[in-house]
């Protein structure tokens, strides 16, 4: 199997600029990426290094591009725009934000189109064959916690999108570069000094955004679906000791609904599916301020010592 890191950087760039683009397998999807922007090409080469490059006759799920919009404006205020199927679903962003735009665009491709899965805005990790769902809106500390856990032995399925297979109730991995924002970047750098950021952009609408690559085992195991075992609603609270509290399942259920992208597309099927997820899962709310402490708490949770976790 050919992976991107086996191609030279020139070859990668050449493919990205070509008519057929660079075709990468990312979990259940194949994306065909086209761009002429060298900063985007460098980030793709570094952050998707371990991903399989698929052959010319593979079925392509998403054909996407990142390019400069036409017009004179690019000489005074460089911009980048994301294209999907000939549409441009977003407003252009400032010129240095091509890679984050590609990532947000690829996420959009999945949650706006892939109704074969019930999709939650959530991080998903796995340990011992059991999956942890961290549903949360932005700013809850979900990404920081997710990054901490994947440097402490948990397998990453996704840091943004939980894909639930309606036939099996299992979570489908969609490992992609993990994004961190603002203070979280240094927090994770202190916790896991080995982390290598492949893209860093200042002054986005979300502040500073940096991406690091999904760990190799997450990419290798992207066919291994996982049964949900825990739903935990994380919340960062400055100065707060790590506290795990049992949460009423009805409240947990409503959190899943509120963080679902396509619950209305699933209708009654979605109600039953999320109901079965909640039936199977232990449900907690979790407050934390320090990553090492949080990671310990989740290790104990995975070892079946949840009862001792300050309930």
């Amino acid at each position, binding site marked *: 199997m050919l992976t991107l890191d086996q191609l030279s950087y020139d070859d990668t760039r050449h493919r990205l600029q070509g008519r057929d683009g660079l075709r990468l397998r990312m979990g259940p999807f194949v994306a065909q990426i086209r761009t002429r922007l060298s900063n985007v090409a460098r980030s793709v080469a570094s952050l998707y290094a371990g991903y399989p490059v698929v052959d010319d006759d593979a*079925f*392509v*799920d998403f054909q996407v591009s990142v390019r400069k919009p036409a017009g004179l404006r690019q000489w005074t205020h460089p911009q980048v725009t994301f294209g999907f199927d*000939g549409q441009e679903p977003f407003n252009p962003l400032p010129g240095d934000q091509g890679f984050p735009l590609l990532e947000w665009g690829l996420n959009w491709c999945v949650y706006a189109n892939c109704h074969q899965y019930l999709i939650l805005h959530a991080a998903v990790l796995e340990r011992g064959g059991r999956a942890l769902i961290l549903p949360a809106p932005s700013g809850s500390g979900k990404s920081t916690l997710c990054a901490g856990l994947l440097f402490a032995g948990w397998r990453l399925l996704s840091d943004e999108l939980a894909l639930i297979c309606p036939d099996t109730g299992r979570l489908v991995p969609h490992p992609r570069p993990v994004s961190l924002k603002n203070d979280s970047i240094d927090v994770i750098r202190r916790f896991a000094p080995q982390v290598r950021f492949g893209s860093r952009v200042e002054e986005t609408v979300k502040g500073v955004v940096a991406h690091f690559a999904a760990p190799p085992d997450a990419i290798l195991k992207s066919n291994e679906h996982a049964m949900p075992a825990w739903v935990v609603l994380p919340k960062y609270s400055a100065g707060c000791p790590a506290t795990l509290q049992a949460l009423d399942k009805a409240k947990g259920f409503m959190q899943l609904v509120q963080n679902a992208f396509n619950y209305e*597309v699933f*209708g009654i099927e979605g109600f039953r599916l999320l109901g079965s997820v909640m039936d199977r899962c232990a449900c907690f709310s979790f407050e934390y301020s320090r990553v090492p402490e949080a990671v310990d708490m989740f290790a104990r949770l995975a070892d079946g010592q949840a009862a001792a976790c300050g309930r």
Partner: protein
Amino acid sequence: MTWPDDLVVEALRAPQTLAGWSNARWSALFRQARAAGLLGRVTRPVEAASPWPNAAQGHVDAARRLGLAQQTEIRRELKFIESALADLHAPIVLLKGAAYVAADLPPAQGRVFSDIDLMVPKAALARSESSLMVAGWMTTHHSAYDQRYYREWMHELPPMQHVQRQTTIDLHHTILPETCRLRPDPRMLFDKAVALPGHPGFHVLCPADMVLHSMTHLFMNDDMSHALRDLSDIDLLLRHFALDAGFWPELTTRARALNLQRPLFYGLHHAAAVLGTPVPSGALAEAERSAPPAPVRPLMNAIWRRALRTPHHDARPPLAGAALFALYLRGHWLRMPPALLARHLTIKALGLHRRAEAPKSPDTPG
């Protein structure tokens, strides 16, 4: 210059030929079909076979699920509308997508819907609007000019959106603008409308009128972004209604009575040419008599051939931009008399329609 393949047209015309396609061609078909709003339709089960590659199955499932969800939503909204308009005591005719779903007609399948189109007699328009407002549907275009544009000149009110569920209703009182060159008498449409069993108060247009409305909507329009989808709807309606022997003569008769022979000509001609719709030679010959005169006909034909395609850059033929622009101008030209059109386009171009806010009550801040 050769034209690029329009894979959606190929898939609609001859679904049995898809089995030998390469993965690359399937990927391109799915991209084009998504742009045309027809992914669900090109992946309808073809004689119980599923010729697409396994890797594409997810998109097929997604399109099917989205289609079902939209049908469920339309049925649910119709119940809300039914109760909102229960005391109207006037016929309510469902048009386009809502009619296809409620009457369970073939174009309901595999199609993306946007809003619900209703038609009530003009005398009942104000009462219908206030009843829908009481039930939560609010007008969306707030500038004074836009309000006047719809209320004085158009065939429908400004779209009404539900405050909680975000669903949109277009409330019509006829099928073409009041200022249009063609003005079919809406009373004739109401007279022939067919009651929907199980939905007291709701009707759909009779088969001939439904086809004529669909053709009129497409061939008088200025916006071609759904042209192929609309043509496919026409194709499916014609194939379905043709099972009744009396349909074709009735279609010709109604077109004459409603003065819609030109849209009928375009509809039959292009459905047959693009999608291979079987049209009896007698019906086609009769419609030909309303074709545009000799110098215009080949020009219009060249324009329509470029518009009635998948709206995706991979399927874009040479001069497509010019054809779409010509149809944009034509749609406006047909819709309004020249003086009014000049005024309307000037106001739109200068952005004045946005500036003139509808009068607010005096105590509203700002």
